[in-house]
């Protein structure tokens, strides 16, 4: 019976096995990396909108409070995207003819809603309640980042579960006075001696027990 395989076949087989191993390993690493990349989570990727609304201009330069537009943030689970009517409270007076705002005016005239693309959307099985976070003094900037510096809004954080848990496991450093939740710049807050222990005091005042903050049923139901 003639020999089928050449002596080098053995080498090739071993090489192939090693190659397959590295391919699978590399593929796995690539997939994991991709899933955690900002490309997949949307972190830092500005999103095109029908109307190129600039939070930088409105909240940053003009200093309009978040709650002027996101009125439900203090009293309900969602902050809400403001109705056309809210835009027009100002834009019926200023920039009335701006072509950029034509869709807003059309929306008010026709009664058809503006179509926005959501930026900070959580998966359907996650239930986040703005009201209680605002009430306890978790400032907007904790999750949404420096909205006052974003010409077009983007996700400042990946909003993955580990991000939520990082705060739920240790809320104290993230808590700020509830009447200042919309303040964006907290640099230097802790440098003032009177503020240094605020988080710990707030935890005590609100009876926040981190052990209870990681119950699955708090967010998943």
């Amino acid at each position, binding site marked *: 019976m003639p020999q089928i395989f050449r002596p080098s076949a053995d080498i090739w087989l071993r090489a192939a096995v090693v190659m397959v191993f590295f391919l699978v390993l590399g593929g796995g690493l690539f997939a994991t990396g991709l899933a955690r990349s900002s490309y997949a989570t949307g972190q830092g990727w500005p999103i095109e909108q029908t109307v190129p609304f600039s939070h930088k201009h409105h909240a940053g330069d003009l200093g309009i409070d978040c709650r002027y537009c996101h009125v439900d943030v203090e009293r309900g689970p969602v902050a809400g995207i403001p109705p056309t009517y809210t835009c027009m409270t100002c834009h019926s007076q200023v920039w009335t003819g701006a072509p950029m705002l034509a869709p807003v005016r059309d929306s008010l005239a026709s009664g058809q809603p503006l179509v926005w693309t959501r930026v900070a959307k959580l998966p359907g*099985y996650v239930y986040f309640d703005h009201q209680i976070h605002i009430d306890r003094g978790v400032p907007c900037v904790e999750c949404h980042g420096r909205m006052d510096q974003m010409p077009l809004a983007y996700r400042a954080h990946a909003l993955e579960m580990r991000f939520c848990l990082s705060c739920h496991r240790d809320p104290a450093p993230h808590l700020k006075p509830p009447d200042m939740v919309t303040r964006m710049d907290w640099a230097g807050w802790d440098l003032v001696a009177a503020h240094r222990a605020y988080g710990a005091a707030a935890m005590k005042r609100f009876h926040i027990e981190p052990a209870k903050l990681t119950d699955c049923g708090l967010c998943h139901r």
Partner: protein
Amino acid sequence: MPMTPPHIARSRLSDRDLRRAAAEFPTAFEGLSQTDRRDLLKVMGASLALAGLAGCHQDPHPEARPYVRVPDGIVLGQSRAYATAVTFGGYAQPVLATTHEGRPTKLEGLPDHPASQGATDAFTQAALLGLYDPGRSKGPARLGQPTDWAQIDAAMVANAARLDAVKGAGFRLLSGAITSPTLGRLIDAMLQRWPQARWHAFEPVNDDLRLEAARQAFGRPLLVRPQLEAAEAVISFDDDLLGPGPFQTSQARGWAARRAAYQRGQGGSELLTAEPAPSLTGAVSQHRLIASVAGVDRLVLALAAALGVGGVAAPALAATQAAWLAEAAAALRRAGGASYVGVGAFHDPAIQALALRINDRLGAIGRTTVLSQPLIKATPGNSGSLAALVADAHAGLVDSLAIFDANPVYAAPADLEVAGALQKVRLRFHAGLHADETAALCHWHAPVEHDLETWGDALAVDGRPSLIQPLVRPFYAVRARSVLLQNLQGDLAADPRRLLAATWTDKLGDLDSPAWRAAQERGFLDEPVTAVTAASAAGPAPATSASNALTVLVRPDPAVWDGALANNPWLQELPRPFTSLTWDNVVAVAPALARRLGLKNGDVVQLAAGARMLEGPVWIMPGQDPSTLVVTLGFGRTAPGLGQAVGFDVAPLRTVGASWRVDGATLTPTGRSLPLATTQDVTTLGDFDFVRTAPRTSVAPKPPTPPPPSFYPPKPESRPQWGMSIDLDVCIGCNACVVACQAENNVPVVGKTQVAKGRHMHWLRVDHYEAGEPDDPAFFNQPVPCMHCEQAPCEMGCPVNAAVHSDDGLNLQVYNRCIGTRTCSSYCPYKVRRFNWFDFTGGDPPELRAARNPDVTVRSRGVMEKCNYCLQRIVAGKIAAQVAGRDIADGEVRTACQQACPTDAIVFGDISDGASQVVARKAQGRNYALLEEANTRPRTTYLARLAPDAGDGDG
């Protein structure tokens, strides 16, 4: 002889084993027989490869469409509640309807309404789905083809003009039962405008015999409303006081209030029933006697004679009957005027009248037996029956006909031949929610608004007028009933809100008045129907018939009722009391009869009475009278829709004279059998103690006993700790909790095939047990939600930690972690976990998606789910309390099942709060845990049913 190679012999052997296994577990092997191993591996490989892709389709940046202008009072993401009502059998069922951004998502009882006090029945819970029913008719039709309103308007205007000329001669209106003051006013106006026109009413399940009985007893038709909260002794002669129907919530509330007082030691609560087939009332009776319909009639006579009601001679009774009667008579003598004697609504009016005389004799009229004018509006001179309409049609007296909310072609007894009579009418309009069997025979079909999207009014069962307000603008091209009544008279400008307001102008002023707004906000007017007093006149003693042949009783179905609800999937899949059957009706037979004929469940029989016959599967019903068969209405619909061809229609057996009771029937097995889908295969209790009975003394608290030792790790102590107590002494097994849970928690419907495989999804089930002799058992109901074991076996079984325990004592299921191994379900001793074998919800049409509760995840394929004590309500309550800076008050968080329960059998609360209601309940001596021996330490515990007091029975 060639030898069989050993490996082939082995394979044959395994084939035989497989066949044997397949015979034993047919569902496990279904679909596998045609697939060989190679194909199976291919499919498995492909599904494994594709499984990973399933998670990739979610768009992280979906569209958002905010309001253009936010309506007043809307807080995004928060529900709002409006007081309104839905109608059932003509009566208003007052509800507090929850909406999310304008979508009605849940109906609760109206807490302020005295008739329901916040409770509901299964029908009311399921009414929500009627709004979103994809089978609803979405626009007008002419001869079955879609048309537009202009066409049908033109036809109505032309007809009105013609009728004006002849004063309405030849015009007939046929409606269902109406209590609405507005519709009544409009019909009266129509009859005044067209004096020659006539109005007929047809409601398949109605009070006609009851009213006739009152007429015989009191000389005029009166509505008799039992006030069970005042009745210390109730004798039910086949009268399902606690059973399904418009009066269920109110009467169950009353009975439970009496029962609760009795538990506290205040007064008596005796309930004795004599009935041919088990009813919800019979199941909770202290002494239930099985008697044929004729036997029940004889017992009424005997009771009348025993209590000295004039002119009645005592018939001869068997020993068991005499003993029951003596007990009943003694109970009535003890309770005096605080007693109620009822005879079933479908019994001979003369017998029912005799019961009214007994109540009068006992001094119960005005106390437990309140009389009032009927709430259902009567046709002028009571001349408007369906039979009269059919006769007139045949005589050529009917030229045009408008049918409102009635489906006589399906629901009327077959001998009326409504379809034939309709053909004799020149012009036929039909208005209803569905293009049903009757619509198919009409020239014009006009779709009407559902109660949740219309303006209207109706009377609740206590006569208080409910105002119906729309929660959402109609989805489809539909009109209000009141508007259509005006359209028929040529008035095309009618506005439903103004028509409604015009009825109430005298009392509430115009639409802008504060009184009107207040009434709208409250949902009803506090004007109960005035009770009238009447003395019964002695009447001739009714005759009772005794026949040896079989008697067929026709009853409304406890879920789809008269068939009008047959398109409601929640109700079709609702396990019926006693049988736990879904998606089918059956011929219920007694065990003795089944033994005699060699029948088993599902065997198809032919049921004949003279030339009339039907075929259907039998179900062996323990505790049924051997000479009685029971069939239910509401099945065998022929109109397209969910209910089409589900079950069999009983109309062929019914006649006008014998529509509820068909004597002289014969039963012939056909040799065929049908698969039936039940959710509970075994109902005999045997030696188990799943349900318990305890003496009344056990209501007193008993000191807690320390739990047995356990290997489970200790849990940290914190507050609150949630727990539930279910009182089996007042649970009547009405299923309101089951549908409430389904509506609250987006529980999917799976269909008959899946139910038959044990894959139903109800998070809360009501188990039914029979204890003792199968021919005459004691019945028990037991609602079984998740037990929320403190030491939960399911949590130990889960390989991915998807079954976890929370600090407040909840046993949680984390859907996004679950990989569907089903280990938890196999570890669960209570079998309360439900697995999504398929994507039951992904294919739902958009309108059904709109019905879902947005606060609860919609589960996908391959995920385990179960009761979580309405976690979304707990979280909402917790946030509300925290924001307000206080603790959650007792009773602030109520589960959906608790809120719906008409007897307050379910109580939920914080077991670490010593003052809470649930703690008081769990402290009672009759508190017990299901499968206590498993040491799972369930948070859901039961209160044993109270045994009758020893003194009650001996007379």
